[in-house]
């Protein structure tokens, strides 16, 4: 029998609807692969096998009786280990939260439960969602599914590695400066950071409440859309979500990007981007043009300044959340996370307030000026190819300014977009000479997630980068 877990989420849902497979079979296929391959990537912190199988059996029974809760009824997922579920521990990738038992259900988990998704457990992540590489001294480093010597990306490291390694059909991550898009891009996946306020954060561990976004990682734009539509929308428990436009359905079959105006950065704005990444971007431009899109050169604003503003907000809010733990449990932090959060204690209040005010101003001008003549913007996901784990280790003796500079490079194009709060979808668009994934991100206007999903789907109808399973884990069982 073919390995059921090698199907995409979209294919798995079609097979479920046609009665070709059951949710129990899909769950067991994922568990079999976790048993076989998780040690290669270290994607899971917690596996809830018995509960997942029981949920799947219940969902199969419902389907047999004619009750289908949603388009993801029976789909097998797992999520970054930072979402509350009563009676369960979500570690946040930390030692500090290792024993904290939740008493509430995160809205995103509740929506997945109601939609009929199976939850296989908690996925590895960077400590307190701080760090874009996937290193973690408490639960072990998460590794790139295409080559374990390379970083998985972070902070939603396990989400990227687990979905890429076909251990699960999709996953939620969170993104404050690129933490959904980076592991997605580094593992050949799609990852959606929706508009700020589109998806509820209630019951999620906070990194920086002004910049935190939650969103799905999947093997294609269609897979991501399935999960996104199940969790997006207003939630009275997260006021940032109130008053948002309708999420809306997407008809992928009749959609087109003919005439879509895609902004592409002028040459000077890409001069720090590695050659291999530039070549993949150029090839993607040609594909999109062949699909009928119109490319429009766009001058980017000063991303470096926006980067510093984002960092000011993240550090200030993290210091506010952590000062009691920094005082009472300093030994329970990794050295690099501790010093980075402590630095937030010394940021003047005026700098934080100005950064928040400038966010409104800069986002409005970005929409009106930078995106004034375009519908979407296509940017590199990352200006470099995927780094090795040893060269990016923040806890190594050689760490310090060198690793700090590398982290800055990794998040060069993602952190500014998190600051601006605009929707952004990462799409794989090539492989480097070492066989690791290269990706672009498509950035949209506020709440235009569906436009991004359609553009990515059109791209994926004529390319196959998203179909390339890592060779380490691509064999059938």
């Amino acid at each position, binding site marked *: 029998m073919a390995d059921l877990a090698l199907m995409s989420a979209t294919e798995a849902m079609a097979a479920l609807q046609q009665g070709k497979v059951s949710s129990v079979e899909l769950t067991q296929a994922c568990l079999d692969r976790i048993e076989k391959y998780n040690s290669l990537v270290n994607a899971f912190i917690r596996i809830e096998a018995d509960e997942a199988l029981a949920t799947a059996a219940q969902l199969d029974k419902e389907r047999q009786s004619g009750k289908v809760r949603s388009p993801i009824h029976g789909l097998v997922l797992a999520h970054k280990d930072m979402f509350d579920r009563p009676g369960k521990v979500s570690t946040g990738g930390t030692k500090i939260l290792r024993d904290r038992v939740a008493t509430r259900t995160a809205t995103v988990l509740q929506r997945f439960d109601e939609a009929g998704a199976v939850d296989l457990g908690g996925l590895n992540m960077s400590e307190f969602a701080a760090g874009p590489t996937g290193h973690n001294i408490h639960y072990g480093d998460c590794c790139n599914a295409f080559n374990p010597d390379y970083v998985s990306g972070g902070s939603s490291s396990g989400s990227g590695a687990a979905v890429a390694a076909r251990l699960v059909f999709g996953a939620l991550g969170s993104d404050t400066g690129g933490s959904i898009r980076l592991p997605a891009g580094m593992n050949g996946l799609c990852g959606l950071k929706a*508009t700020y306020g589109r998806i509820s954060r209630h019951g999620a561990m906070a990194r920086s409440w002004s910049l935190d976004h939650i969103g799905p990682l999947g093997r294609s734009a269609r897979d991501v859309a399935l999960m996104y539509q199940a969790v997006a929308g207003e939630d009275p428990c997260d006021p940032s979500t109130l008053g948002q436009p309708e999420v809306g359905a997407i008809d992928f079959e009749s959609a087109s990007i003919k005439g879509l105006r895609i902004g592409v950065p002028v040459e000077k704005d890409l001069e720090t981007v590695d050659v291999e990444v530039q070549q993949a971007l150029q090839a993607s431009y040609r594909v999109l043009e062949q699909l009928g899109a119109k490319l429009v050169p766009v001058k980017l604003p000063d991303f470096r*300044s926006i980067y510093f503003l984002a960092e000011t907000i993240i550090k200030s809010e993290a210091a506010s959340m952590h000062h009691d733990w920094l005082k009472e449990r300093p030994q329970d932090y990794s050295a690099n996370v501790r010093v980075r959060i402590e630095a937030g204690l010394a940021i003047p209040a005026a700098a934080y307030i100005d950064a928040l005010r400038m966010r*409104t101003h800069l986002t409005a001008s970005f*929409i009106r000026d930078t995106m004034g003549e375009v519908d979407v913007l296509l940017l590199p996901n990352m200006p470099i190819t995927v780094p090795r784990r040893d060269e990016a280790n923040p806890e190594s003796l050689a760490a310090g300014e060198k690793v700090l500079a590398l982290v800055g490079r990794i998040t060069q194009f993602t952190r500014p977009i998190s600051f601006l709060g605009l929707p952004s979808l990462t799409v794989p668009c090539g492989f480097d000479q070492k066989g690791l994934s290269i990706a672009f991100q498509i950035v949209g206007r506020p709440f235009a997630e569906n436009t991004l999903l359609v553009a990515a789907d059109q791209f994926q109808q004529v390319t196959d980068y998203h179909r390339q399973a890592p060779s380490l884990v691509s064999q059938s069982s």
Partner: protein
Amino acid sequence: MRSDVSNLNSLAQIALDLHGIERAPERVEEIAIETKRLLSGLSSINVKLDYYDEPLDYTVMLRKEAGHG
């Protein structure tokens, strides 16, 4: 870089003291260096805010830009 953060060392030490956090001098200096890097970056930003004409609420602005609300 280490030689020109003495003033920020004091700021870092005061911030830690205010929160009752004890740190070795070399760690205080690391925090000072990190703070200097960030504040130096911010000092290059030249955006003039008009405090009465700017939209006050970020999420309201996002919805308005989407033509909603």
